[in-house]
């Protein structure tokens, strides 16, 4: 049976995801070793509770330690892995190939290569397998044919993104945009710090382009007005709304379209080709959003497994997801060929 996995930023969301039908959850632990989710991370104590909660339900919890760890953070990192192992987590999600190698030598724990590990071809996946990886998360929007090749060529467990925001770095490699915007290091892979809600600044409007607006730790620049970053619902800076003020008017603008990948229609192909896990990324929104999203995916997977011949994407699922997302959704990314 294909596994429905949901990354979660905190215990509340984790419980909602598991209660709504997720088979497993990702548990990002401390911001030094995990990326994404702003500054929402599980402490070591919360991680133990999360693992316990999942196990009580007969489900799984994988702990995410996928930061691009530097030498100065290695000792901390290694202690964290010891804690994860002691907590009897079902696996670790890692990106650094050196760290994968080290974990494999020291702990008999399942190692999942994070999307950030950039296994952009089956050959990359095979290399990671030789270091001890048993499951590979395929970078976003590879074609259906290439997903099939991963499975055939590597005989590894394969996990595929099927839902979530589409950001500028499709393969999850390093994006420097947050570092340029928020004065944070690049090692965290942080998309947006939680405490950045809104930035507004003033500068002289006039004929001359203004180089920058600096307020607090955030800096931006524009030639026509002050720029703000709206914190509500903003997950990644490349798709965030920027409030541009032109005189008394405020206009919302963004670099990339807000669009949610939602590949329900790919379920038959992915299951037929023995994909092991479908990853539904529940970005930090309301609990209701998480619950609805997971419920729809659960129903869709169960319906296919119960009756593959008569399965089709139901209108009700799409309506429920559209209501939950309140954003444009893309239903056929994989059928457009991927990349």
């Amino acid at each position, binding site marked *: 049976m294909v596994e429905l996995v949901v990354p979660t930023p905190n215990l509340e969301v984790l419980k909602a995801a598991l209660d709504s039908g997720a088979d497993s959850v990702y548990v990002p632990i401390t911001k030094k070793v995990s990326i994404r989710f702003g500054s929402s991370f599980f402490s070591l104590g919360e991680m133990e509770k999360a693992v316990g909660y999942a196990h009580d339900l007969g489900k799984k919890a994988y702990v995410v330690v996928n930061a*691009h*760890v*530097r*030498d*100065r953070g*290695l000792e901390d990192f290694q202690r964290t892995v010891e804690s994860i192992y002691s907590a009897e987590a079902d696996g670790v999600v890692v990106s*650094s*190939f*050196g760290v994968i*190698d*080290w974990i494999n030598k020291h702990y008999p724990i399942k190692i999942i290569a994070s999307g950030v590990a*950039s*296994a*952009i*071809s*089956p*050959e*990359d996946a*095979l*290399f990671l397998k*030789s*270091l001890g990886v048993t499951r590979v998360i395929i*970078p976003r929007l590879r074609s259906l044919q*290439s997903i099939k*090749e991963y499975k055939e060529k590597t005989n590894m467990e394969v996990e595929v993104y099927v839902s979530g925001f*589409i*950001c*500028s*770095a*499709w*393969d999850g*490699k*390093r994006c*420097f*945009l947050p*570092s*340029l*915007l*928020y*004065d*944070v*290091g*690049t*090692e965290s892979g942080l998309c947006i710090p939680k405490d950045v809600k809104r930035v507004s600044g003033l500068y002289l409007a006039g004929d001359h*382009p*203004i*180089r*920058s607006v*600096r307020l607090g730790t955030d*800096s*931006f*620049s*524009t*030639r*026509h007005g002050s720029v703000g970053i709206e914190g509500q619902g903003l997950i990644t800076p490349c798709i965030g709304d920027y409030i*541009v003020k032109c005189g008394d008017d405020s206009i919302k*603008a963004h*670099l*990339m379209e807000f669009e949610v990948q939602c590949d329900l229609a790919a379920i038959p192909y992915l299951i037929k080709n023995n994909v092991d896990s479908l990853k539904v990324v529940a970005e930090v929104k309301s609990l209701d959003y998480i619950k609805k999203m997971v419920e729809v995916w659960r129903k869709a997977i169960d319906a296919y497994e119960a009756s593959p011949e008569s399965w089709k994407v139901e209108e009700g699922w799409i309506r429920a997801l559209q209501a939950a997302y309140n954003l444009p959704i893309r239903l056929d990314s994989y059928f457009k060929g991927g*990349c």
Partner: protein
Amino acid sequence: MEITVTAYTYPEVEKWVKSGADSIRFGEPHCYLKALRDWDEKKIRKACALIESSGKKAQLQLLVAPSSREEIEYTRNLCNLASSNGIDLVLGSLGMLKITNSCVAGSYIKAYNRLDLEVLSRHGVRIVSISPDLAKEEIEGLIRNAPSMLFEYQIHGPVSLMTSWKCFLRQMCPAEGKGNCSYVCTGYIRMHSLSGEELFDVNGNSLATSRDLCMLPHLGELFDMGVSIGLIETRNREYDNCIIDVYKEAVQDPGNFEYLKRLRGNFLDGWYHGKEGNSFCLGRKVDE
């Protein structure tokens, strides 16, 4: 310190063999990330012969991971071609370490700590390209932990928004081949309202920064740390020749800021001083 320079076209290779560069790095259309055109195996051989005859070293860059059977076969042929001609291969993904050895790990292979270096060393990597987002102390530590390896660092040229096989920004523009990058993020990006009114351009002129990285004032430090190869990413301009010459002279005389005067514009020193993304964005001059 040796100077390596990138060439995007065959005429550029011809140009750089007359320059002060010690090595010339070039690629071919199926494997290279940047905007390369008009390469085929015959031309690769010709370029290699030209570079070798000038007493310089040729490096063949294989950045994009091959995924289809044809691409893998093609990559194998290139690896064979490189090894039979004693040419270094510059790799961009881990999977290719299974195909070849004795190579350069490009910055797309994310070597951030000593454990990463151990794995690379075990797989025959001799030269590691240091990631541009590492700070001075981190570079120092990395090099100290791998005395048997050589380290390359980008000393001049554009720094992109991300190191990614597939950058969505590039998708927004006409692209050829896999992950073809022409530094869209360092170009002039403007945003318009639906009615056509210009809204704003991030960073005044570009998403990342249009200013080039310039490590000229830090050459001495880099050399003392153990960086033995300086990489100059070119922008396909006549002016690139001047940049190469300046650096070639500067490596003989590190610490002499007079060389800066021969370079045009304001430059940045990236993340060298730590997590100063804002400084990078705002364009602190390197001589400030």
